[in-house]
């Protein structure tokens, strides 16, 4: 994620990746978001896929697996609350890691 990327002009064409590329992150090597993947297999709503403002969660139907792109997390907490099975072991990233908002 570059922090200096800027997106000009037609924001109608903007993708989520474009949006995320404007944010500064200090990524950790370990995920601070740890769902219980066994429970995800029987989760009906997969609500985490819908509510995450950073598109962190993606259910891979072929592999029956939940992909967690934790490096993109904005640390809002929505998935923790909304998870159908309340099965996300959700922590804040380490003090030196994670998102750094400059214009919040």
């Amino acid at each position, binding site marked *: 994620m570059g922090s200096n990327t800027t997106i*000009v002009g037609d*924001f109608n064409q*903007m993708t989520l990746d474009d949006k*995320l590329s*404007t944010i500064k992150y200090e990524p950790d090597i370990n995920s601070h978001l740890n769902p219980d993947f066994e429970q995800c297999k029987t989760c009906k709503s997969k609500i985490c896929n819908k509510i995450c*403002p950073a598109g962190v969660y993606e259910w891979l139907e072929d592999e029956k697996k939940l992909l967690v792109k934790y490096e993109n997390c904005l640390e809002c*907490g929505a998935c923790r609350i909304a998870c159908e099975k309340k099965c996300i072991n959700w922590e804040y990233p380490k003090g030196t890691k994670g998102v750094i908002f*400059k214009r*919040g």
Partner: protein
Amino acid sequence: MSENLNSENKTEVIVVGGGPAGISCAVTLARAGHQVVLIERGKFAGAKNMFGGAIYAQPTREIFPDFEKTAPLERKNVTHKYAILGEKDGTVIEYTNKSEDPVSYTVVRGKFDRWMAEEAKKEGVILVEETVVKELIVENEAVVGVRTELEDFYANIVVVADGVNSLLAKQIGLRGDIETKDVAVSVKEVYKLSKEKINDRFHLNDEEGCIYELFGGSMLNKLGLGFIYTNKDSVSIGLGITLNEFENDDTKPYEYLDKLKKHPLIEPLIKDGELLEYSAHLIPEGGFNKIPTLCGAGVMVVGDAAMLVNNLHWEGTNLAMMSGKLAGETAVVALSKNDFSENSLNRYAEELEKTFVIKDLKTYRDLMDIAHSRKNSFFGYYLKKINSFFEMFTSVNSVPKRTLYWNFIKSLFKDRGIKELFKDLWAVIQLLWGILIK
């Protein structure tokens, strides 16, 4: 951090969270001559925070009397606009007042929270950044300290100011888990625009700001509100939608915002802007009925951690500051008596009851329940109907006006049915009763 503490890693008060609540609490204690450590997980205070947003002048002066001289403020807000958006049309009510002292200023949290924290430091607060409090240390049913990633620290009192998610208040059972109907997920985008463009588009002079509250549009029939705030040379646009709205729908938070930005009334305001930053945060919406237990032995909960947000008015920082200050004052009293029991700290809850914080939340205690139950009326149908009224009123189509009026009135009964209309009316009466009398 250890060098600031005695050999047992103990201080008088630890405040967890360097937002407006925590900083206000810490600085109140430092001014009274107490040892206070403020722990913030971000690289600097504000780095993890996002809001609309505007801070309010009078409440901020109560904590930092001269803040207007040195704080990093963007613009002083002189214009408030309420935009009721249909699918493609919209009705805007505007209130402008350029003469009075400003009620609010727009700020950027990464600058403003950081400024507040630095000011607090100057007044003696020991600020520890880049440190996550993992849990509270509890001994004999009293909170006696905090566990960070590296070390344990002890204090007579711990103030929990860790924001909306408050994992700490939850850990010690002062509050239960948040339900999806009691919290909104919000996304915001900040667009770079020249000062001149902002002034032109929002009818402002330099330094003056404009706030838009947005109803409807992409959020029609959803419990959601949008906002636009002007900064010096950027414009912030965002929205918050109650989390349980996503259960029956595949639209993602940022898709609502993308659609809102394309609304014909909104697009010209941010056109040609360059996206500087995208961000997200939760907003507590539980209101009065969801305020947790505010204190226990050795611990007090302040700000968003205590759900102290008046969401209809986009007020949160002021409630956070007031609650932080009162918790700080209570800690001063408790330290003088050397009594950190729940009973002693309960003074904070009692004092808070007397202020606008609890009073306002009480005033709106029924708002969210009514909003949830009559959502399609008040966040959908009537927003569209207000616009169709003006569409009718402004139309010039050789149909006699009286016919137009009667058609409009008939449409109300046809669309809604008498029963629904009465339910809506009853909801309004209940709401007004709650706000004005109950």
